[in-house]
């Protein structure tokens, strides 16, 4: 796949217009846009020319619903071709409505069914710890409604108990959980031994600072509040 030149944040709306057909997931796509941009622009240590490099940060998009923003950012950063975006969801495209790691460069996990990414991220973290790897962080993006899946809390509990300090979860909170999280979803993580911070999910500087606040001694959650 021919790579596109690196584009800017201002190019994302134009890229998103190429990704049509999955409008039922529009809300999901747009809620993650700024978090994904900040991750790939300022936080993640991943080179699009060597997306499998062992020392890279691992980014796991657990909330695979509405991946248009993900594909737009991957295209903007040169992981995939801008030309590929227009084929979104068709029979010859590698870009489906849920991402497939075996089809898209730089995609760490195939996702779409909710509640799978965070448990896998714990396994990736444990493998890196067992190998004594220095440097790579494991960052997993989940949605606030996705956290209704109980499998997430199996992972939240164990990660906290095991002090998995290289693990960071970013919760994109667009208030889509039907019954909500009274007191803030970050409290559920903090109860299990995580550090946590809530920020404006559209504020790039605040997001960058929130990721940098991870102390490396315990897992860290960033709740990115994105109100419609």
């Amino acid at each position: 796949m021919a790579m596109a030149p690196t584009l800017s944040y201002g190019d994302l709306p134009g890229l998103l217009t190429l990704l049509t057909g999955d409008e039922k997931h529009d809300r999901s796509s747009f809620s993650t846009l700024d978090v994904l941009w900040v991750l790939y622009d300022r936080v993640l240590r991943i080179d699009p020319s060597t997306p499998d490099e062992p020392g890279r940060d691992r980014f796991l998009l657990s909330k695979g619903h509405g991946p248009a923003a993900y594909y737009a950012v991957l295209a903007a950063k040169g992981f995939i071709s801008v030309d590929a975006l227009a084929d979104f969801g068709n029979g010859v495209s590698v870009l489906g409505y849920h991402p497939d790691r075996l089809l898209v460069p730089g995609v760490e996990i195939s996702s779409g069914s909710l509640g799978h990414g965070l448990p896998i991220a714990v396994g990736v973290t444990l493998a890196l710890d067992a190998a004594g790897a220095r440097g790579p962080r494991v960052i997993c993006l989940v949605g606030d409604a996705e956290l209704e899946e109980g499998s997430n809390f199996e992972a939240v509990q164990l990660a906290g108990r095991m002090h998995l300090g290289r693990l960071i979860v970013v919760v994109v909170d667009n208030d889509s959980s039907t019954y909500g999280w009274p007191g803030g979803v970050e409290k559920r993580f903090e109860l299990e031994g995580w550090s946590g911070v809530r920020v404006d999910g559209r504020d790039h500087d605040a997001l960058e600072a929130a990721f940098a606040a991870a102390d490396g001694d315990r897992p860290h959650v960033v709740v990115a509040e994105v109100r419609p």
Partner: protein
Amino acid sequence: MITMRQRFYEVAGDLLDSDARVAVVLAEIGAGELRPHPRLVNVGIREQLMVGVAAGLALEGLRPFVHSYATFLVERPFEQVKLDLVHQGVGAVLVSTGASYDGARSGRTHQAPADVALLQALPGWTIHVPGHPDEVERFVRRAAVGDDNVYVRLTEEANAVPVVDDGLVVVRSGRDGAALVVAVGPTLDPTLEATTDLDVSVAYLATVRPFDADGLRAALSGQDVVLVEPYLAGTSAAEIAVALAGRPHRLLPLGVANEELRRYGTGPEHRALHGLDAAGIRRSIAAFLADSPHPGWGTTPHPLPATISG
């Protein structure tokens, strides 16, 4: 004789020490049987996480062994098995214990007769149903060097001696044209006892997926096939139908009935209730060879214990 489970723990401990790629993931079951090790992870009673963690380890190049009761390894986290392993394109070795009715005293919650049927519905699995602890070790060590998805089904039942060859192995030959009885894993000994004075050939099969279709065609000189499986009856019936698509044949699939027995008791008692003890196997084969209709599953008289309610 050492149990299959004890042998697995011995081999798993050895592999952890000798193979830097091997990891073991548990959800409490078996945690007290293995020495602490940096690549031994007990996730607590969190079986969805157990499989997800294994997938994460595999994504980083490790070879995870995942172990629990079949109910909690295959049935409870089945979507994790489907998506976190198969769909991600990574492999793990699932090693179960408990099988169909080892936990009969514990009731239905600890019985998993459909485990093989479930896993064989997913692509790419190698499924071993060993009949002896030595076979467990052979399959486990072989799985350690691969990257694919492998299931090893342990049970408290065992044959007296191991079968050392792979594939469908003829262990007793009848006359030309005789029926072929295929005994899977621990059903071999009761099958041999059941057919001692019958003119049938008996073959053994411990690896049921991929199914040894060539071996079946080579071993069958007549038209009658009896399949004896220690899990849900008929699980491999479609494999046999495909293998013999070009040949007229009759098939009698014996196995665990797809019904709620709602009975406690011992494993051997449940084996007999499902007609998988020597007497039951013999009754079914004799009726089949005499062209008598099989009574069908769910119709076997299993007198239920009296309820304690009025």
